[in-house]
């Protein structure tokens, strides 16, 4: 099993939390958004608790940082810009997959159509990377800054991510004479009151008429070809790491302890 974690750090220096996270969950790939600490500082913290972490020797995408427990040469960048990074994951004797990572524009700076445009372009980049790789075994993870039920994620012209595996397994859907490939979005079942997890990954209560309070902007989307290798029950939104409690008594992320987003953890059985 490959253990992958994603966390939007909100520019908080939380190296101790990261070190505890990789140690407790034996993380193989750690993907961070809004990490402002130098990569060497993060590497130092990770390797203090669990020696063996590496990072890319060169980096252009400024919004994401990636640390691996295997040699970074096995994670080959194939496309990127300021807000996304798509890599081929080529581990020895394992199935090759594409790992797409993104941190898209905040709702504070982009209207719903702007967010749709961003998701459309990301979808285009993913499809282009799949065409070049010669397969569709892609997993997309990141802070999309839109909820799973919003048009940029659900729309065929956006990321086209649907709530059930059964629908996603149809592979594609035709709309207005164009074929659009599905993603499966397992985040839907992580909304609301549940026994085994928080109601979302990010809490924000505005004073407007409509506010969801809990959001799931942090998502993992799975192409149908990878569904057999993605154990749903292993996808978790964490509320604690070791002795660190990430949420307060009200159940919301405790900003005295960590970022305003909760970390997400999942496994791939490739």
């Amino acid at each position: 099993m490959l253990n992958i974690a994603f966390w939007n750090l909100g520019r908080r220096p939380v190296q101790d939390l990261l070190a505890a996270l990789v140690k407790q969950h034996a993380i193989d790939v750690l993907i961070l958004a809004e990490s402002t600490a130098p990569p060497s500082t993060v590497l130092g913290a990770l390797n203090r608790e669990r020696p063996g972490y590496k990072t890319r020797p060169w980096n252009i995408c400024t919004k994401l940082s990636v640390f691996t427990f295997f040699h970074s040469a096995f994670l080959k960048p194939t496309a990127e810009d300021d807000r996304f990074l798509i890599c081929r994951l080529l581990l020895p004797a394992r199935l090759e997959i594409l790992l797409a990572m993104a941190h898209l524009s905040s709702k504070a700076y982009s209207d719903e159509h702007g967010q749709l445009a961003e998701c459309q372009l990301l979808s285009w980049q993913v499809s282009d990377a799949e065409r070049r790789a010669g397969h569709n075994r892609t997993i997309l993870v990141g802070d999309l800054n839109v909820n799973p039920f919003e048009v940029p994620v659900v729309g065929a012209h956006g990321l086209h991510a649907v709530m059930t595996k059964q629908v996603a397994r149809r592979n594609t859907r035709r709309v207005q004479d164009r074929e659009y490939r599905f993603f499966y979005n397992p985040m839907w079942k992580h909304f609301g009151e549940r026994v085994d997890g928080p109601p979302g990954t990010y809490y924000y209560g505005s004073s407007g008429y409509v506010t969801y309070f809990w959001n799931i902007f942090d998502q993992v989307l799975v192409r149908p070809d990878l569904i057999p290798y993605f154990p749903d029950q292993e996808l978790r939104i964490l509320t604690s790491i070791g002795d660190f409690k990430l949420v307060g008594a009200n159940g919301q992320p405790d900003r005295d302890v960590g970022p305003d987003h909760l970390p997400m953890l999942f496994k791939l059985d490739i």
Partner: protein
Amino acid sequence: MGNAEDFWPPIDDAEDPNSPVVLLRKQAEALSTKTGYRLRGRVSTAARIRLSNEALEALGMNPYEPQDDVFTHLFSIEVPALEDYRYTLFSISHGLEGYPVVYENEGGQWRRLANREELTRWLKETLSSDKTKRILKTLREQAGS
């Protein structure tokens, strides 16, 4: 069929040298030549991207009408030594007419370029900016000699 009358207007096969995509392709070729093809410029076109209302207004389009005629060109730098890794440096969009063109600046605001002269000036600024220089330096180091 051989004697069927042709109702089509005269069609000029030559590319319009002033069109946005041709200007981008020329800069893509210039990068490839200048780096001895260690880096390759590439222009890809994505049609039917639904732009933000702000972008459509900058294009002079009504955001509340169907928008099927928007073309978005992505300018990428490819590194053949890295198995054709590509970095998307910027994208621009326009309607059927070619001009105006819109782009999103670093601050997330959409800006309008009315004609060839404005696009050429913006391209010059963008391709010679410190950010582009930093990216080129990183990619050239990865591309090897």
